[in-house]
């Protein structure tokens, strides 16, 4: 089907969402809670766009691009005054929530906000509650973290806000996907620490480079159906070995 985004005609398939189509066509829409690896969620409200349709008798609406299903003939504007107002409002609020996040600072600056017009949160952290960490953790099949509480009290943590349970495999996917770097972790010679839990480290059998935690490798082996012996060495060592084997086979 055919739709128009910012006066450009673009093609889309049924079942796609506006944001995907826009991104594929190089049309930029800011989005904080969206990641192609997980289901769209609609929490940050930054990807607001204004839509209308020739059949709608002039009616227009503000919708989140990440969740709005494409529709033939839809006319989408990604930068109207209304869109700008809502996005600026959202960023202003987020800046009050996370004054220390450079990501939010930069985005806010793009919308003309240098400093929040609201009261900054006391003892702010970097979490904007975009929910990406929770969704990715669920997606990889661990579901070790979730949101706790609701409303302004809401936070992301492990059950009872203590130490990660056995569900956590220490893969760092949550920390990696976090757009603001709010999830702390550390790695020393022998130990990786995330969500207050210490993990042993598995090293490449050859070169001793870190390749993960025992729980992580176990989990990914089980999840992929591959034998655990696949997960024992780093890519460089494997690569060199395989080359040698390759030569042996061909000669």
């Amino acid at each position, binding site marked *: 089907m055919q739709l128009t985004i910012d006066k450009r005609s673009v093609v889309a398939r049924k079942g796609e969402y506006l944001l995907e189509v826009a991104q594929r066509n190089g049309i930029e829409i800011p989005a904080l809670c969206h990641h192609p690896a997980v289901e769209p969620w*609609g929490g*940050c409200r930054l990807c607001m766009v204004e839509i209308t349709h020739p059949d709608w008798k002039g009616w227009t609406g503000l919708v*989140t691009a990440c969740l709005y299903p494409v529709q033939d003939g839809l006319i989408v504007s990604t930068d109207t005054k209304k869109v700008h107002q809502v996005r600026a*409002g*959202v960023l202003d*609020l987020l800046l009050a929530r996370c004054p220390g996040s450079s990501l939010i600072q930069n985005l806010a600056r793009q919308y003309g906000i240098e400093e929040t017009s*609201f009261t900054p*949160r006391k003892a702010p952290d970097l979490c904007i509650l975009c929910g990406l960490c929770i969704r990715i953790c669920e997606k990889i099949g661990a579901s070790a973290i979730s949101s706790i509480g609701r*409303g*302004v009290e809401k936070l992301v943590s492990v059950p009872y806000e203590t130490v990660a349970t056995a569900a956590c495999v220490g893969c760092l996917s949550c920390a990696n996907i976090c757009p603001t770097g709010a999830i702390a972790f550390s790695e020393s010679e022998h130990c990786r620490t995330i969500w207050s839990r210490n993990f042993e480290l598995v090293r490449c059998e050859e070169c001793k480079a870190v390749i993960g935690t025992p729980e992580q490798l176990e989990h990914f082996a089980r999840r992929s159906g591959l034998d655990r012996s696949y997960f024992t060495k780093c890519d460089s060592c494997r690569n060199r070995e395989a080359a040698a084997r390759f030569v042996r086979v061909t000669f």
Partner: protein
Amino acid sequence: MHLTSPEALKRLKSQLVRQRKENKSVITVCAGTGCVACGCAAVSAAFREALKENHLEEKVEIKTTGCHGFCERGPLVVMRPEGIFYQRVKPADAKQIVEKTIKQGKVIEKLLYRDPQTKQLLTYEKDIPFYNKQERLIFGMNGHMDPTSIQDYITLGGYQALGRVLVSVHPDEVIEEVKKSGLRGRGGGGFSTGRKWASCRQAEGEPKYIICNADEGDPGAFMDRSLLEGNPHAVVEGMIIGAYAIGSHDGYVYVRNEYPLAVKNLNIALAAAREYGLLGADILGSGFSFDITVSRGGGAFVCGESTALMASLEGKIGEPRAKYIHTVECGLWEKPSTLNNVETWANVPTIIEKGADWYRKIGTENSKGTKVFALTGKVNNTGLVEVPMGIPLREIIFDIGGGILDGRAFKAVQTGGPSGGCLPESALNLPVDFDTLTEAGSMMGSGGLIVMDDRTCMVDVAKYFIHFLLEESCGKCVPCREGLRQLHEMLEEISRGEGGVGTLDGIERLCSVMEQGSLCALGRSAPNPVMSTLRYFRDEYLAHLEAHRCPAGVCKALINYSVIEENCTGCVVCKRACPAEAITGEKNQVHKINSEICTRCGICLAVCKFDAILVE
């Protein structure tokens, strides 16, 4: 008993009506939650005792019924068939009622209701203004039946609409009838019920689900509870008819966890309906099957929102999701689902029974039928009232509600629950219907009506509701979660007299972001309490901001308590009552309040008998 055809149901009804002896005396004791709290169980027991003593158990029946609505005056007892209305009945009165009223046909004056306006004693239920301005389409049955008795419901004509529909009406015709009746959802949104059903019927996907929303989270609202407690079969019958029309075989009732009696009575009703062949497989021998599961809610206000409710039913966290694809197409477990409010479902049997044309006569152009309101606040008669749509607010508050408590002046009425709005005196003549209330900056919501007198500060009211929403926001989306945090902060500032007039512009800007940007209707309507008070009571905001005054004398940072010397008799009552020990003064001497220590708790004002405490 298992009924296998609508004819069998009809026969059962005639039999039950015949059995119910003509003119047999019935003592109906209200056992709604309000009356239970006032001790109605002891009253019923006392009646049973008194009847036994007088050997009248055979001749007189005691019926414990659901809520009659006039909770303010409970425990309520109505003597039928005469309709004599006794209020605030104590167990000790039972003996006298049996001896005088039942045996001698005499009315006991001290238990009658006195009209506060005309000062007249009123004998009959039908003469009481609280009732006679109402139109009790849905609630009428409550006072006449025992909610745990399916036979009572059938005697009053229950399940006949279902019986007729199953054999002689095509599902499409049922939907047409509901469409034509103009019924709109009573849960808040006011969406056309018939249109919702039609979309769900047409939607692709099997199975289809029917859901009854009994989450009722609005503070002060209890009509859904009273319906489920007092007349559960009406809701069940409505759902079965809906299921037949839509083509669904699975139904859910999502009941708020805090409603144990509703759950109990509903479960009794469901079991009875199954036993009678009115629910389950092959209903009334028609070949149509449908059953209902009761699910107890998660106890969050936001779980009343349709998508959050469905998530919660699925066992997930009760958070809303976007509805760009409607729940009638993709709802519970991603299947087509129809969600309606308790009261909406309860309207269905009446519409089918009496016909859409009859139903359309009640109400206004675009809002048909009646609406049940929970009337609370500073009004004489609090309770549940069912009125035809279009009735002016003034009639509800002053005629049915009996005016403002303690004869004070009316200031505002808050309609529509926490995210509704506050309407001033000038709006009192507006007809109550979906569209008029929305235009006036408030909404119908689920039907809360909170009356406020002149001692209410509108900034404080706005702050109260914003605080409620702040605690109930699910926190998923930024505008609602962070917006409410900031909005509450700004209102706190205003109530301390801080901030400039610019604060109001800031509030309006923020409200617009929340309205347009929030994910679900909670956040989108959350600004209502603030916007409506700003619209009608802007002066009061300005008084806080510019003059640093709280005209209603509520906002603690802006008021001072002092003693009016001319009035003070030196009785030391206030001095003794003050928890902060801020009052000094010897007996018979004028007292003084130390403003430094005073915590503005208001106790002195409440205890002073000489009007000697000044708040300004």
